Structures are given as structure tokens and as C-alpha cells.
């Protein structure tokens, strides 16, 4: 399992393709929203968390699509499946890589988000990072599970967002609300129902993915 994680991380570290394209896409979304929505000092605080999460969700969809596509392009899927590793662990390995890549991307994007929207977040930063982590695990859990399914269909790139976005709606709502509260000065521990929903979604879908991944890979 560690070997698979290491292999994917090395691949990313050498190429840096995914993170670079994610970063540019995320930045583009931030900029596009500046034009799409009339933002000024009076409403920026309520709109900004939503924009940040839309940027993350769209970029994540792109990144997740790559997770198994690289194996397929290089003809390594069979090798991975033959490795002495149960399928649940393979799922967890891919999930960890996806989450790490997305977290790096978010760390790069965050300064620009703060800059472009003129937010003072130094006090809220640790809390926001925890919300980002919880949200990213949820996005990754759903995405990693269905990235493989989307690959098995005819219109691969088209299929993945259609599969995962509806499933991610409750997570998105919770993540946006939680970020909003955190940016307004709340502590992570005081998120109440939103925090429960975030963690609950993560636990539910990581477990579900770990359990059912086996059925999605046996030929």
C-alpha cells in the first residue's frame, strides 16, 4: 500500500503536471467568479466561501479523473490489480494520494484566494485548514470510488462529474457553511451540525469505498 502511494507521489513530484494544471484551473475559477458575480466589500464575506469551494470541487473533479487514467494509459491497471494487496487497500492508497495532491493544490490556491477577495484570515487559518481537510477527504472518497467507474464507460471525461457532483452536494453545502462560519471567527469545535455532517460524510463514504471497491475491480 505504501509502495502504491509512494509511486504515485513520485510520479507527481517528477512531473508536477496535475498540481500545475489544478492550480491554474482553480485560479481561473476565482477570477471568472469575480466577473460573473458583482462582488464588493459589503457582500464579499458571504460569497467568498462558496467561490473557494466551487474552485476546489471543479479542480478536484479534474484531478480525480487522472487518478486511474494514468494507470490505464500506461497499461498498469492489471499490474496494480495483480499486486499482493487487497482492493480495499488499493482504494485507500489512491484516496490518500488524491487527498495529498488536492491539499497541496489548496495550499497554493489559498494565498491567492485571500489576496483576490481581500480577506483577513490569519486568525481563522488553522480552523479553515481543518475544514478544508475534512471537505477534501469527502470529495476524494466519492471521487476515487467513481473515477474507476467513469473510466469503464464510453464518455469517460464526461461521465465523472455527472457521477460525483450530485453525490457531493451535501458535503459541498456543509463545507461552504462551515468555511463561512470559520471565516467569521468561529472555532472548528463550534461548528455544530455542519461539523458533524462533514465528518459523517467522510466516515460514511471512506468506509463505503473501502468496502465496495472490490466489486468494482474484479473482472
Amino acid at each position: 500500500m505504501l509502495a502504491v502511494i509512494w509511486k504515485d507521489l513520485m510520479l507527481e513530484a517528477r512531473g508536477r503536471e496535475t498540481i500545475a494544471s489544478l492550480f491554474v484551473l482553480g485560479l481561473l475559477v476565482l477570477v471568472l467568479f469575480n466577473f460573473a458575480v458583482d462582488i464588493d466589500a459589503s457582500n464579499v464575506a458571504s460569497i467568498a466561501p462558496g467561490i473557494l469551494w466551487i474552485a476546489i470541487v471543479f479542480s478536484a473533479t479534474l484531478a480525480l479523473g487522472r487518478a486511474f487514467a494514468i494507470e490505464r494509459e500506461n497499461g498498469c491497471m492489471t499490474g496494480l490489480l495483480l499486486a499482493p494487496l487487497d482492493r480495499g487497500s488499493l482504494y485507500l492508497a489512491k484516496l490518500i494520494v488524491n487527498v495529498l495532491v488536492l491539499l497541496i493544490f489548496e495550499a497554493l490556491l489559498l494565498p491567492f484566494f485571500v489576496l483576490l477577495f481581500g480577506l483577513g484570515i490569519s486568525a481563522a487559518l488553522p480552523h479553515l485548514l481543518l475544514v478544508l481537510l475534512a471537505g477534501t477527504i469527502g470529495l476524494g472518497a466519492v471521487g476515487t470510488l467513481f473515477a474507476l467507474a467513469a473510466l469503464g464507460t464510453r464518455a469517460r471525461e464526461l461521465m465523472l462529474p455527472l457521477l460525483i457532483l450530485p453525490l457531493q452536494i451535501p458535503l459541498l453545502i456543509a463545507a461552504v457553511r462551515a468555511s463561512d462560519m470559520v471565516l467569521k471567527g468561529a472555532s472548528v469545535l463550534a461548528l455544530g451540525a455542519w461539523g458533524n455532517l462533514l465528518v459523517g460524510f467522510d466516515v460514511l463514504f471512506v468506509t463505503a469505498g473501502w468496502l465496495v471497491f472490490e466489486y468494482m475491480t474484479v473482472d
Partner: protein
Amino acid sequence: MVIALERVLLRFSLPIVAALFLLTIGCVFFWVPTDAGLGLSQRIFYYHVPAATVSFLGFGAGGVASALFLANGRSEWDMAARASISVAMVFATMVLVTGSIWARTAWGTWWTWDARLTTFLVLWMLFASYGLLRSFARGTELGSRYAAVLAIAGTLNIPLVMMATRLWRTIHPQVIANPQGGIQDPAMRATLGLSMIAFLVLFAMLWALQLRVLRLGAKIEVLLLEAVEGGNQR
């Protein structure tokens, strides 16, 4: 088990559905009293509410059948799930349409982001993507498994969606008052109950028909394959 159920339903359900629906339509338009507060438009409830109930049941049944398919790998359960979800989608679309029509007359707007409406729309989109996956996945065993996992994930997601939309609504101003007062009139209750049964039987019949279509389609594919192979040997 699935196939036996399909046979029984196809043999007996048509006259029952026809009779129940004639009776329901008669009750809704000629017998049940008009609601004092909401007026004539309230009569759409006798279609809206049963359709919603049936579509929830259909999605739930689809999720359960999908889990059974993953557990035992028998294609009849896969087809049962697929048929159940696709018929439930028809009813869910009907719920959204009748709901919108009613909302226009009662609330003066086609749509509001009320918790219930949002939940149902998300549910509709979830299973719409199931339909897309089914048509895009090649007709393989693996494609069926992907779809089954999606149906299970969708079903698991329903309580989370409900929770999220309800919380999300409570922090926003409530645009419209909650119209749920509960039905008291016995004639209204009877009509709603009758309509509920009629919709359930209709769902069962459509499910059986859809299942038959799927099974015959699979059979044709096998026959075609055999014919092609036979032609090659000659």
C-alpha cells in the same frame, strides 16, 4: 423470485390498475370536497403525494436490489434494480412537475429553495446520473456493478442530503409558510389512500413491464451473438 413476481404482475395488474385509476379520477374530480383554504388546486395533491411516495419506494427498492446484486451476482437483481430506478424516475419527474404547477398557483412561484424541494431535486439528479451511467456503461457485468455501487451510494446519501438541506434552509429566511396542516376530512383521506394504492399498483405494473423489456433485450443480445458465431462456423 424476481421473474415469478414479474409474471404474476404482468398477468393480473392491468385490469386492477385500470379500475383503480378510474375510481381515483372519479373521486378526485367528482367526490372529494374542495379544500377551504387552498381551493381547487389542492386536488393535485392526490397525484403529487402518491407519486412522491412511490418514487421514494422505487429508489429505495433499487438500492436494496443493487446491494443484493453485488452480494450474489445474479443478473435478475441487477435488472430489477435498473427497472425499479428507471420507473421511479418517471414518478419523480411527475412529482417535480405537479409540484411546480401547484406552487405556481398556491405560492405564486414555480420553484423555491425550500428544504423539501431541494432534497427532491438533488435526489432526482442523483438517479438521473444513474440513468446516464447505465446508458454509457457498456453492457458488461462490470458496468452493472458500477451502476449498483452508484445506486447504493445514492441511497446512502439520501439522509445526508435531507440533513444538509434542512440545516441550510434554517439559516436562510423562510420565504413561504409551511402549508402542511395535515388532512382532517375523511373523504380527503380516503381519496388519498385510494390514490396511493392505485399508484403503487401502477408502479408495480410498469416495473414488471420494464423488467420484461430488459430481460428480452438481454436475450436478444445472446441470440444475436449465437447467430453471428453460427454464421462464422459455416
